[in-house]
């Protein structure tokens, strides 16, 4: 297991990030301001759909992009992602900056994804605990 915690200061706000490589899965957390674990969702790539399945485990009170972010990370990294996204929905620019930075850091931590796509899709069908969850049908932006 390995972890990377870092902070980014933008003109608008200070963003804190925590990335944990559990081995076969990722846990990512990002927040502006107070370091809360305000919501939690899980996204898992699946062979049944090009878009990863996603389930909300802990809902967020504010309008949160947590589910979409989790899906995009799961798609890019081709592994299940547990995601807690605490960036205010009122600032799309900040959200975009945070997501881009997170993906950049993940790419740095994991190198190229070509090999990993082949390894990971085999595991994708064994999604635990998502029975009954509706996969979101939003297109993932690249």
């Amino acid at each position, binding site marked *: *297991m390995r972890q990377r*915690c870092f*902070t980014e200061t933008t003109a608008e706000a200070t963003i804190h990030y925590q990335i944990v490589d*559990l081995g*076969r899965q990722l846990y990512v957390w990002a927040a502006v301001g107070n*370091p809360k674990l305000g919501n*939690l969702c899980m996204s898992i790539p699946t062979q049944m759909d090009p878009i990863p399945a996603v389930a909300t485990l802990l809902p967020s009170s504010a309008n949160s992009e947590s589910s979409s972010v989790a899906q995009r990370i799961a798609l890019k990294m081709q592994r*299940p992602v547990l995601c807690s996204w605490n960036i205010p929905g009122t600032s799309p620019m900040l959200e975009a900056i945070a997501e881009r930075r997170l993906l950049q850091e993940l790419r740095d931590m994991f190198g190229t994804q070509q090999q990993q796509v082949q390894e990971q899709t085999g595991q994708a069908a064994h999604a*635990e*605990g998502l029975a009954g969850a509706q996969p979101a049908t939003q297109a993932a932006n690249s």
Partner: protein
Amino acid sequence: AMDLAPGFPVKTKMYSRDIQGVKTDFLFSAYIDRLLLIITQLGAAGTIMTTTSDAAFEAQSPTYTTTVLSGKRDEPLLQLAARRIVENAASVGCMRPMIICMGFKDHAPQVMKEVVQAVSEDNIW
């Protein structure tokens, strides 16, 4: 290895222990509203549970609840282990709600007991 910026607002602790011959990873993260515990032998979060400690009214003892958010709902020893962890934390003054993720190869009572023991000996509260 941990890469922690000085002054990072989330306190974390990570370590590995041998539990009944299996390498087990422990990660603790303290947020202001919750604690996150990930305990895994599988490289994955496994069963994800929330726990709460309800502060006592006067003389009554606190109540603890565990709920499975994802994963095995038919393995009572997992919820029991989570409850034990919460009880032990409360006994030293930590009442914060937790998210406890447990991914084990084997759910034998001895495994659960050693995991609970490890957490009570080495944690961030």
